[in-house]
């Protein structure tokens, strides 16, 4: 472990620009949330006319730091300076006025409005008090051309696929005059072709003197496009340098902190198929396919990793398996017998459980305690029966909950604490514990490591290994290539609702996976 000071000393000081040239300076910023310190006395500088890369594991504090800059959150302690002046943002508008724009990782678009309306929302072009729709349309066409999106500006944003929506989000920010542009994982839903266009845009912005803050997990991209790099780990800045001075192994060392081995694949015995999916399709409301003729099968004790970009259909696939989206067609066989159309309640009873992608919206009940969340799906098993009524046996429930707390290594002082007092990784473990308590035979994980810290990530993959060792079939999705290979016996790649390739572990090829995950490549291949 290096301290901040050591790290700065070890890097070549003379190549670092002096902080006085910085456009934005964050001094000693600390941000506390209930139960966790997201940022711990962070000093951070952003330089104009360059791409300032910010990198760190999920949960390292990148998003929090960006929220401070974008005015979405206020620091608990510390100050922010823009062009040498101290600023206090009370909302995103304040930050925009100060010239800071952000393209959030989550899409902040209105699906039922047109592209034009989205581009100018809150920033409408006016003529005599009315919205000047013609001028907006013209400007929108230019902006879309700049980001390389071939679409009529008057169509609904909801009808675009996620990568295209991402481009709209980028175009939206290009339409505003900003000195600092924050891009939070802008390429997570983009195909290779679209990434090239984006890099062209970034280059142009850099020429114009804009300070671009670029957050990404893709190390190759960072080496290509970055000028300055800042590495965050556990809410602290652990490395600052110029990109030309460093290499990929350096970044990994800083991010993970030493030789922290997260992933530990171990070969295992795979049994007969438990779950077989045949010709599964699901249409979206707009007529496109969320799932397009999906076929695969998973064996007893097997772990399958599904890799795909955002919007590839991974989430829908897992949700259909859990019994959501009743309009899905196709066959699902469980233990060789066709599974009747059912609700999540029936599927969970049958032995299928899902750890959903977004733990805040679908994973946890924020108003309940850790224990109540943990036993929510399986509380019926902790009951005594009396005259046909079920009564919760408090002791048994507590036992079950605490068993999971220790099995999964959940850090909580008392399991009757509110779940919202936990950190992201520990919340995720509670949701996994909830699924485990239903004693599933097929366990589905949708992006299980999104927004969790390194330690918790390792715990989660370790838990997955253990679960598979007990004969449970595990399917997990991820948009990180490394994690797709982490513990999986097989990797499926999805794009445009299709499974584009199904590779056993020993045949895995990174280039092939990247290519097969790209929607445009898949579309081109289909056209030929």
């Amino acid at each position, binding site marked *: 472990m290096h301290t901040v000071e050591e790290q700065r000393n070890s890097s070549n000081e003379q190549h670092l620009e002096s902080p006085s040239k910085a456009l934005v300076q964050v001094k000693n910023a600390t941000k506390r949330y209930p139960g966790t310190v997201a940022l711990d006395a962070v000093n951070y500088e952003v330089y104009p006319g360059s791409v300032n890369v910010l990198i760190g594991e999920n949960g390292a504090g990148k998003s929090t730091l960006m929220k401070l800059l974008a005015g979405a959150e206020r620091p608990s302690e510390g100050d922010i300076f823009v062009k040498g002046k101290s600023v206090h943002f009370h909302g995103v508008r304040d930050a925009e006025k100060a010239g800071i724009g952000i393209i959030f990782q989550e899409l902040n678009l209105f699906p039922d409005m047109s592209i034009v309306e989205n581009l100018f929302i809150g920033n409408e072009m006016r003529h005599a008090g009315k919205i000047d729709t013609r001028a907006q349309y013209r400007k929108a066409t230019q902006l879309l051309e700049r980001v390389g999106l071939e679409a009529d500006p008057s169509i609904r944003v909801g009808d675009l696929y996620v990568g295209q929506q991402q481009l709209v989000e980028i175009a939206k920010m290009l339409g505003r005059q900003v000195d600092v542009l924050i891009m939070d994982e802008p390429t997570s839903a983009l195909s290779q072709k679209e990434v090239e266009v984006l890099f062209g845009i970034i280059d142009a912005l850099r020429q114009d003197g804009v300070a671009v803050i670029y957050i990404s997990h893709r190390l190759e991209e960072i080496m290509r496009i970055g000028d300055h790099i800042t590495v965050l780990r556990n809410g602290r800045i652990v490395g600052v340098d110029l990109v030309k001075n460093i290499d990929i192994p350096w970044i990994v060392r800083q991010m993970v902190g030493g030789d922290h081995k997260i992933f530990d694949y171990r070969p295992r015995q795979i049994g007969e198929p438990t779950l077989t999916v045949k010709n599964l399709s699901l249409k979206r409301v707009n007529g496109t396919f969320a799932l397009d003729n999906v076929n695969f099968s998973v064996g007893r004790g097997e772990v399958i990793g599904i890799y795909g970009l955002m919007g590839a259909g991974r989430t829908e696939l897992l949700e259909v398996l859990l019994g959501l989206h009743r309009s899905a067609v196709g066959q699902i066989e469980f233990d060789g017998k066709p599974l009747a159309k059912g609700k999540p309640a029936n599927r969970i*009873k049958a032995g299928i459980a899902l750890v959903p992608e977004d733990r805040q919206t679908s994973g*946890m*009940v924020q108003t*309940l305690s850790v224990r109540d969340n943990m036993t*929510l799906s399986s*509380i019926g098993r902790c009951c005594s029966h009396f005259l046909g009524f*079920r009564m*919760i046996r408090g002791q048994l429930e507590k036992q079950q909950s605490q068993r999971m707390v220790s099995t999964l290594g959940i850090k909580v002082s008392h399991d009757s604490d509110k779940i919202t007092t936990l950190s992201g990784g520990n919340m995720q473990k509670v949701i996994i514990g909830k699924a485990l308590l239903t004693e599933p035979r097929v366990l589905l994980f949708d992006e299980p490591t999104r927004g969790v810290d390194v330690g918790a990530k390792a715990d989660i993959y370790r838990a997955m290994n253990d679960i598979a060792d007990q004969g449970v079939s595990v399917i997990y999705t991820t948009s990180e290539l490394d994690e797709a290979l982490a513990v999986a016996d097989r990797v499926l790649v999805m794009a445009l609702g299709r499974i584009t390739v199904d590779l056993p572990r020993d045949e895995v090829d990174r280039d092939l996976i990247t290519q097969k995950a790209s929607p445009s490549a898949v579309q081109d291949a289909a056209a030929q």
Partner: protein
Amino acid sequence: MTTVTNNMSSQDHPHRSKSAQASWVLLQVLKLRIFVALFAVVLYFSLSVDNFLTTNNLLIMAQHITIIGILAIGMTLVILTAGIDLSVGSTVGFSGMMAGFLIMNGIPIGDSVLFLNIPEVILVTCLVGAFIGYINGALITYLNVAPFIATLGMLYVVRGAALLFNDGGTFSRLQGHEELGNMGFSILGNGSLLGIGIPVWLLLALTLVTWFVSYKTPFGRYVYAIGGNESAAVFSGLRVRRIKLWVYVFSGFCAAIVGLVITSQLQTGHPMTGDTYELRAIAAVVLGGTALSGGRGSVIGSVIGACVISILNDGMVMSGVSNFWQMVIMGLVIIIAVVIDQLQQRLHKRVMVLT
């Protein structure tokens, strides 16, 4: 168990800063605010109104509390699921008319007329109330109508139906006839057991049962979970629709009981009985600390909230506060209650961060 917690807190406390400690104490007071409010109104009126604390007056006030209290119990579960039931006032009126109709006119079957005895009348009326709740629930769960709209519609439909029963007229003199075997309806509202009125016993029993259900059964847990995060409840495999449906059925059932009690007390079924009671019930629930956004609150709080509202109401009447001022004060109390709730939420977050 206790020693462990004590140890932990005694270790924790010295590390807390003074302001954190003050916030923590304030938070505990705010959490118990409904008891503080109850104590305050009782204290104030017993000092300012002469015969406030007489047995007779307390018994009368208890009767008033039961009306809002029982409605508030049903309403609490509805609100805990993040729903609302605006139709309970109308259901009170309708079930009163139903009971009156059954006792006075009987059920015409062909040429003859069937008169039910009183327990049967009560049972049928309760079932009818539950059925009104079922319609609410079915609209909300299976047809995806927003709870506010579905129950607002039912507020009008059911009130209209209550008026249609006797063409806007009442059913009075419900003492029944000996030869029809339907005498004794007044016992429900006016009878007493061990010196305490039957309606008060009903309130106590319903409070206990609902408290037990909400804390000790899976159903209660599910109610809280659905209100806390419906999407997570779906992903956890809860049968969300079914649970919501039952909650509205129960609210309708509670309204029917209130309708029966009032009709029995007055010996008259009046179609406008219970007008705007839904708002008082909601006020009691909110005052008792249940969040309209769902997932947070308790039945006990609501019943105490009902006590505060009723006592405040009766106290103001007894001390001669004008009708108009009564409304203003009642409204302010409700608003202040919600403002305090918001403060509590904020303080809660602050305490969590500080400790």
